């Protein structure tokens, strides 16, 4: 468990959290509220939603949430209402890699076998601070077994401190680095020829596209010698297939995100590490696993019991619904969130009048926060489901209080790894005050709107029973343990793993191909059914079928790169007001290279004004030797603007106020690096 999980109780009893629905009584953002009943809140919302639908059409209300189990209910409600505009936090966070993986593997969720890896290249994927416990464990296990880890990061992170080598790469230089690496893999013939032949298409076209990106040509872009990249590439290939290039997580260092992440996905395919130990693997769903085993090993619960509603016919504001268009690889539940705020302000391609969000805090997470705030103030209707009066919720008309994770039951969720499994969240305590979980809020609201047929369950228990109807025993066991897993781990190209699988499930022998691999697993959901090293759809849409290097110019000569990252003791922007966690870290001092600080006569704790083309922030400085001289770094999620979050209010600086609301090609991401100037204040 991490510090954040351990602080759940602290949040549970936080006197600052909302326990009743509240309605705004003053101007937007001035902090005047009155408590109302759920009944009153629902009536208000229903009435407003109906008026907007009548006047502007259902499409003019956008719905957004963080990704997670709540999303199911919000999205169902949105479609029932008739709006195609549903969003999650993707474009402010992980959509870069999921779009890249979708392009290459036809699937945005592919897993990394960290613990068995022998050689890892990591570009600022900070598994020890932006923590997913299983990743942290995996990397630690690999290191214990002697794996080599190369951390390419402009600043010295905790991960860098555990790495075999820290290479302070130039911000934005990683795209050029990956071009050179792919070039070296291909032209030094270090790639896995048999794998490429059997499982991929588009190799020749890829080769053609990267032919000019020699390490020598690229070296000047990332401040690492051409010889060094050749060495690293050779070493990576030497350990293949038990080596990987980590595709990262919250990313988007530059507008060339898509080329960078695709180059990583492609490099892994060239290393032939797919479905091998220490490489990448596809999550095994119960259906696939049972099919391979030739017997019924795992129960096949229904993912969602909600009837599939047709996607409302209106065009979306973010253009991802254009078939084979530039943004068509972005998931339909994800969208390009940051476009909502532009659409509100500019009323293009059409006006957005209402916004309905669940646990989403765009003022902290979407670039150019001033624009976001302006947009929120312009809305006819803004409903927020939240635990606190957050930086964003403070501009809402109504805030509906959601139960925290300790107080709510959720549906069964798939937890597929090398073998299939499920997990379920169950409440530890009864909800405090009048808070409600999402499944209930949207169910009740749907009833009021007359959409009950889209929500055919009475409560979450009923929902669960319908999910696992055919497997009463398995459901019982899952609820008892909270987690379940079936069968044994399977890597479809690993000899040892295959041997064990076949011994356990003898029927599965029939499913082996002539190479004694389960190639069924590597059937991709791409158009060709293979791993696509060249993307024909993207080629047609925007000429990005192969890899192209476009210099992602991120700053001017006289500026610093401003970069950011996550810290272990906070979850993005929403735990700063939890007292225990705030005590551990309440401010995000900006890292600056010691030599530069000396030159500018800056001491630890001195205040500086950081200015970008979008805005400025006051921050304190932390001179350190752990960062490049041309770069500034801060943890993000600080600088809260809601006075209701009293202990976090105004502490530290907010990166979102400095960043520009860019939409990067193909991936549609907000870019998280920008050029800034600083002055002492």
């Amino acid at each position, binding site marked *: 468990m991490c510090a954040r999980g351990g602080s759940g109780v602290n949040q549970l009893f936080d006197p600052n959290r909302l326990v009743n629905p509240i309605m705004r009584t003053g101007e937007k953002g001035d902090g005047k509220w009155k408590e109302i009943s759920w009944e009153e809140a629902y009536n208000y919302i229903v009435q407003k939603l109906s008026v907007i639908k009548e006047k502007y059409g259902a499409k003019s209300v956008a719905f957004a949430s963080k990704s997670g189990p709540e999303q199911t209910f919000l999205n169902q409600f949105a479609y029932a209402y008739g709006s195609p505009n549903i969003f999650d936090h993707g474009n402010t966070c992980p959509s870069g890699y999921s779009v890249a993986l979708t392009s290459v593997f036809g699937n945005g969720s592919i897993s990394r076998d960290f613990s068995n890896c022998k050689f890892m290249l990591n570009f600022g994927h900070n598994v020890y601070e932006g923590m997913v*416990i299983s990743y942290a464990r995996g990397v630690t296990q690999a290191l214990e077994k002697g794996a080599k880890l190369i951390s390419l990061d402009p600043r010295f992170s905790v991960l860098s401190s555990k790495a075999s080598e820290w290479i302070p790469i130039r911000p934005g230089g990683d795209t050029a680095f990956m071009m050179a690496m792919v070039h070296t893999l291909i032209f030094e013939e270090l790639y896995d020829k048999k794998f490429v032949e059997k499982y991929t298409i588009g190799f020749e076209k890829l080769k053609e596209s990267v032919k000019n990106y020699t390490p020598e040509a690229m070296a000047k872009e990332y401040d690492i010698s051409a010889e060094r990249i050749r060495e690293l590439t050779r070493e990576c290939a030497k350990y293949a297939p038990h080596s990987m290039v980590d595709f990262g997580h919250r990313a988007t260092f530059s507008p060339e995100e898509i080329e960078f992440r695709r180059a990583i996905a492609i490099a892994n395919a060239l290393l032939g590490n797919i479905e091998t130990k220490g490489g990448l693997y596809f999550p095994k769903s119960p259906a696939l696993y049972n099919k391979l085993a030739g017997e019924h090993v795992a129960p096949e619960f229904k993912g969602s019991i909600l009837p599939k509603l047709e996607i409302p016919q209106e065009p979306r504001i973010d253009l991802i619904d254009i078939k084979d268009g530039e943004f068509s690889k972005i998931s339909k539940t994800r969208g390009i969130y940051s476009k909502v705020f532009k659409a509100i302000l500019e009323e293009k391609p059409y006006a957005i009048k209402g916004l309905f969000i669940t646990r989403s805090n765009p003022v902290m997470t979407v670039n150019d926060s001033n624009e976001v705030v302006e947009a929120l103030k312009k809305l006819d209707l803004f409903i927020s489901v939240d635990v606190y009066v957050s930086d964003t919720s403070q501009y809402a008309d109504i805030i509906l209080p959601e139960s925290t994770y300790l107080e709510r039951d959720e549906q069964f969720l798939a937890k597929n790894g090398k073998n299939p499994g499920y997990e379920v969240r169950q409440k530890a305590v009864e909800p405090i005050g009048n808070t409600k979980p999402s499944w209930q809020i949207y169910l009740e609201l749907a009833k009021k709107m007359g959409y009950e047929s889209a929500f055919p369950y009475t409560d979450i228990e009923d929902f669960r029973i319908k999910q696992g109807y055919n497997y009463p025993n398995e459901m019982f066991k899952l609820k008892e343990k909270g987690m379940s897993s079936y069968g044994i781990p399977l890597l479809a190209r690993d000899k040892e793993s295959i041997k064990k699988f076949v011994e356990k499930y003898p029927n599965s022998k029939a499913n082996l191909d002539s190479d004694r691999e389960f190639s069924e697993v590597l059937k991709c959901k791409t158009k060709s059914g293979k791993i696509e090293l060249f993307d024909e759809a993207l080629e047609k849409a925007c000429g990005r079928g192969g890899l192209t290097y476009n210099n992602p110019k991120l700053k001017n000569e006289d500026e610093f790169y401003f970069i950011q990252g996550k810290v272990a003791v906070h979850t993005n922007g929403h735990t700063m007001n939890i007292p225990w966690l705030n005590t551990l870290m309440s401010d995000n001092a900006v890292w600056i290279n010691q030599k530069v600080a000396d030159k500018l006569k800056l001491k630890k704790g001195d205040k500086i004004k950081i200015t970008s083309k979008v805005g400025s922030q006051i921050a304190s400085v932390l001179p350190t030797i752990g960062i490049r001289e041309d770069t500034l770094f801060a943890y993000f999620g600080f600088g809260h603007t809601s006075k209701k979050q009293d202990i976090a209010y105004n502490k530290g600086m907010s990166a979102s106020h400095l960043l520009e609301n860019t939409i990067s090609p193909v991936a549609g991401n907000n870019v998280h690096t920008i050029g800034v100037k600083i002055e002492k204040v």
Partner: protein
Amino acid sequence: MKYAMIHDMEKCIGCQGCTIACRSENAIPDGYFRLKVKMDGPHGEFPNLNFNYVRHSCEMCEHTPCVTVCPTHASFMDENGIVDINANLCVGCLYCVVACPYNARYVNPKTNVPDKCNFCKHTHLKQYGEPACVAVCPTDALIFGDLDDPLSPIFSYLANKPFVTNKPHLGTKPKLFVVPNKKGGIKL
């Protein structure tokens, strides 16, 4: 039985999971700590740097200055080697707080009695056989066991890894062992 703990700095990532687990388990008043982990650094020569991840908590000394100075025997070592405090006997002289060379004790503002780590003796250890911090550590950087039992995991760990103790020159013989960073030196 002789309880002991290892903090493997090589594996520790300074995530404070242990710090928070300790607060939660032992109802530590806001602003005080029985346990915290300090990230110290970076040290070294760019780009060959390292951080140290230093645990601050009671070291469970064998030769305990805190017990020796206690006039009422409120501070004592129990049969399992855990240094503990009997609040009923404490007269609040705070000699122990001053005597501890590791700064491991704080005075509880409500009771005015010194408090410190006792390996969750009455709570987590009793229930689950290990302190709360050990149970939550995501990278298994904390190892807990019995020095009298050759089968205890702590035994093989100490046999296979180089370890040190803090301020050995004081002769307190801590039962908190530290596996230092391989990278760079260790500063304690």
